[in-house]
């Protein structure tokens, strides 16, 4: 998979390296700022409010 990607990329090795680094940076940015915050609302069990189980004062998941 990664070997194939390397072969597909144009230019000498340092141009390819540069492209790969840019790609990695872009993927990291997407993960850190969009994917992870979105995932976090499902997996992260942080409850900070006091609520009665029957009558939550906030919205579900507060």
């Amino acid at each position, binding site marked *: 998979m990664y070997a*194939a990607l390397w072969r597909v990329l144009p230019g000498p090795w340092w141009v390819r390296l540069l492209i790969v680094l840019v790609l990695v940076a872009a993927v990291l940015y997407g*993960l850190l700022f969009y994917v992870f915050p979105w995932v976090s609302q499902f997996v992260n069990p*942080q409850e900070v409010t*006091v609520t009665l189980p029957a009558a939550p*004062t906030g919205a579900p998941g507060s």
Partner: protein
Amino acid sequence: MSVIGVIGEVLITAGVIVLLYVVWQLWVGDLIYGAERNAEGAELSQEWQQQWNDNPVVAPTPDPTETVAPDPVTAPAPVMAEPGDGEKFAVMHIPRFGPDYAVTMAGGVSRARTLDPIGIGHYPGTRMPGEAGNFALAAHRTTWGKPFNRIADLHVGGAIVVETEAGWYTYRFRTLEYVRPDEVEVLLPVPQAMDVPAGTAYITMTSCSPMYAMTERIVAYGVFESFTPRSAGEPASLQAVV
């Protein structure tokens, strides 16, 4: 190129991403959001100051005979209307949490609309700053910029300052308590006291306890000390660290 090889690479990539998620959740995310929160709070605070500088309304003119201003300069606390869900209305300053600590406060305590994207949430139906009764707040203790991370480090008498467009409400930290998640009595006008009319203004801050868990809640209580109108400038309580 073998199929097994591709599957292996996909699995390795997935593993790296899961590890990255853990790093983000426990460390990098807090760096990002923590800085963001403080920048947002400082910006809001500056905006209010700018608005006031542009159009200074010296509403409660201090008595000319009292030009030797007592310190802190105080005035009767104005009580603002309750904010809507997710509506920003104040900035929290806690000197003990650092001089840069400035976290925006908004109405509601839902994670989706207030606690995750903004910072500190105000329990709907509880009192507003300076009002007799209980001004109750919630915020994350871990993750999402962790506004209440050091809530257990507060010292008795430490300042908890709520800045609004009108000025600064100074509360003094009194005590900590650990309760079960369903003990909503901490939100009563007089916390934990049923059917007692409130003559004093309290602040109640709830967060999770133990850290990274949800079995209990940590609750910090404070008592209202004074209101400093914007015309009097920043109160001394913002500087002193107890």
